[in-house]
């Protein structure tokens, strides 16, 4: 049976490879749970890289710890699975050292807003030219279902069985307040829309903050489920006025399920451009 199964898989893989879909996918099979939103995110990431015709060797994917931490294993690029909460500083050093590379920093909600929350303001205000993907499933998945910084107030979790006493953070509002020059939200159930956003993020010269709404199918059965997301997510269509901070802030406050670009400052110089100007 084993042989038959693997032969079948190989055959299917060859077929898909022939279509070039898996060009940016590594040989390793993801270890995420069946039905995980992260598969959709990866799909969008592969497509964005392919459409921009990035060379594999010029991409670096840096992650922290958590379910999202495994991302670099599954993408055919240079990858570095670092420490919990630290994908941002490592990606910062790498990008400053190697401006020629496309650098993705990947983090979960616990990773980016909990343990690594102190790095976000600084990468944003420095405007380091990296694309930051926040895999936000509003729960600690790899440690099996504890409250994270985006878990809704009063939701029951394994660390707060009586209900989460904390008020959740609003990642889009934070990114805007910290001065990120590109702020957007994607949805794991919409790889096409997400692909467009990721492509824009890669092309943006400066820090691109992309929050991705995604379910944890194993440890969150009530809040950010596929069902709830499907029913509530809609397109923001703020694009025409995406340079307006006031509109963006209002949308961040009032439209928790709106996806698309919230804000972009195309004129702001990236950190390295600023340095070149100062040291001229």
């Amino acid at each position, binding site marked *: 049976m084993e042989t038959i199964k693997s032969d079948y898989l190989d055959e299917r893989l060859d077929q898909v490879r022939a279509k070039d879909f898996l060009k940016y996918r*590594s040989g*390793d099979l993801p270890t995420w749970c069946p039905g995980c939103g992260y598969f959709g995110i990866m799909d969008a990431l592969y497509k964005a890289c392919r459409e921009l015709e990035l*060379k*594999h*060797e*010029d991409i*670096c994917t*840096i992650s922290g710890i958590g379910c999202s931490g495994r991302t*670099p*294993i599954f993408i*055919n*690029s*240079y*990858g*570095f*699975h*670092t*420490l919990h909460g*630290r994908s*941002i*500083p*490592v*990606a*910062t*050093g*790498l*990008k*400053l*050292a*190697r401006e*020629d*590379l496309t650098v993705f920093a990947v983090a979960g909600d616990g990773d980016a807003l909990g343990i690594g929350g*102190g*790095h976000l*303001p*600084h990468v944003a205000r420095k405007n380091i030219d990296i694309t930051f993907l926040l895999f936000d499933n509003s729960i600690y998945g790899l440690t099996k279902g504890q409250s994270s910084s985006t878990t809704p107030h009063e939701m029951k979790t394994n660390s707060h069985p009586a209900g989460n006493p904390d008020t959740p953070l609003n990642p889009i509002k934070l990114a805007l307040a910290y001065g990120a020059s590109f702020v957007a939200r994607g949805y794991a159930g919409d790889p096409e829309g997400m692909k467009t956003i990721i492509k824009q993020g890669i092309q943006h010269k400066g820090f691109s903050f992309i929050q991705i709404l995604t379910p944890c199918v194993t440890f969150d059965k009530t809040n950010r489920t596929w069902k709830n997301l499907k029913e509530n997510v809609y397109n923001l269509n703020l694009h025409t006025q995406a340079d307006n901070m006031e509109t963006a802030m209002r949308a961040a406050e009032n439209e928790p399920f709106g996806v698309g670009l919230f804000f972009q400052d195309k004129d702001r110089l990236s950190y*390295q451009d600023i*340095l070149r100007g100062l*040291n001229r």
Partner: protein
Amino acid sequence: MKDINIVIEMCGSAGEGTISAGEILSRFMSAQGYEIMSFDSYPAEIRGFGKCVAHTRISSDPIYSPGKLADVLIALNDNHSISQLSALKNQGILIYDSQPARPHEEDKSVLGWVDPGIITYGIPLTMLAHRAAGSARGRNMVALGAIAAIFHMDKAGFTQSIEDRYSKKKKIVIDSNVNSFLEGFEWATKHIEKIDSFSFEGVTMPLQDEKLIINGNQLVARAALDANLKFYAGYPITPATKIMEILSKELPRHGGILLQTEDEIAAIGAVVGAGFGGIRAMTATSGPGFALMTEFTGLSVMAEVPAVIINSQRGGPSTGIPTKTEQSDFNAALSGGTGDCPRVVLAPTDTYSCYQAIVLALYLAEKYQTLVVVLLDFFLSNSIRNIDTPEKPSESLLNANIAPQPEELENYQRYKITETGISPRTIPGTPGGIFFSTGLEHDEYGRPNYSDKGHLKMTEKRFKKHGAVLSEAPAPQISEFDGETADIGVISWGSSAGAAREAVMLARKEGISAASFSSMMLSPFPEKELIGFSDKCKKLLVPELNFGGQFANFATHIIKRPLERLNFITGRPMASEDILEKMREM
């Protein structure tokens, strides 16, 4: 041939020009061909009238330590100088202001506190400064003029050094400083009846190339630039900040980038990121910052990414004593962090070897794809020496990454197990060389792998590097033995090594059979050499600037026999006098 060895201290209140007068004295003496070592102490607070001491040792022979007690104390400020009298030798010389602006109450005058036996020379510093330049500001220069006269220093050369120091200032500033100096010189020549025996007259120093007058932090920055550093990330912390400040100016000129981060975790994170990108990167910090960086030490070693951390030790633990020197981060440097985590630790033993240590650190980190910690301390960071300009590193030390051969890329194993533990490394951007790194245990491809055999194999691989590093590390410094054996062997490390070496030389002059051992390389440690040394010594002594005897404990494990310890946490550098006294008791 006549020689001289003198320690001169000037003590004043912040803003009185104490430190700049000390600097001029050092530069002048260096230009005259003497060896100098100087060390200033000043308050941790920026504002106020805190006590400043400029301590300068001058010698016609090589200097290994700053000298514990002063031969001469120049009291610019009576109040502060009273507490400094304890650092003056029994037969020392006090130079004080005999006509201060306001007469002192009896118990506030430094003269009221001197022990019998101290030679006192009263100079009307304030009055002479007014006469020379119309204000009291030049008292420090008057004092320099007075000691130049009393100790028969070269007047013309000294004047020149003062002019050089202020050459970028307006003429009136130069003139008032020079005139104050001359006023002090003339007055002391005429009025001081010399009863001490210090004299620079007749001491001839050979002509030599101009020396570099530099402290450890400055030399570290210089070494890093010479060794092709291209990225520095850091967070301000005493006493390492100066390294960042120098590099912030110099790195952009050398095609590099300096990043000031939000904390020390981000600093070492960015260094690891830049190292992953294939360029040379480092950070510098002190105890509290090193504690934060500890989480990345494991990642650097596990994922085999080059990183260099300089830890300039200060008094600890916690925030501790930020402006005092100590050697209490030995344990943290060697084993801070979790798991079996072999890293390289170097500790320069004097100012000059700071250069060598940094060049070596950047080389070893790159070649062995690992973490290198360099332990300095407050004293090494800030004490000033005159040294020969170090030779620039050779090409082989500048390009050390071992890249895979084209055929190795066919089935590229980033963590391939080899003889030396070094796996050929591609850097991002290399076609066909793609790999994945992780802090998880992994196989030779870098894929997560938690098997017991795999973990053992990879742990052994990481430890293997130690053997290879040791084979190309600088040999320990071992003094000559009088005969086959010595009664006392002094084993030391870091900035205490100079004082230990000096103490052994002094002891041998007294007829004590003694020898010294020190090693810049702390991890991996030259164990064989230490065992060989200790086998030839009847008794062993480890002097160090911490309370618990961190290095002594480490050494005991290697040599498997008890040893004597000498520990100080006074915040002052190790003194050869104290080691010698202990040796006499042994």
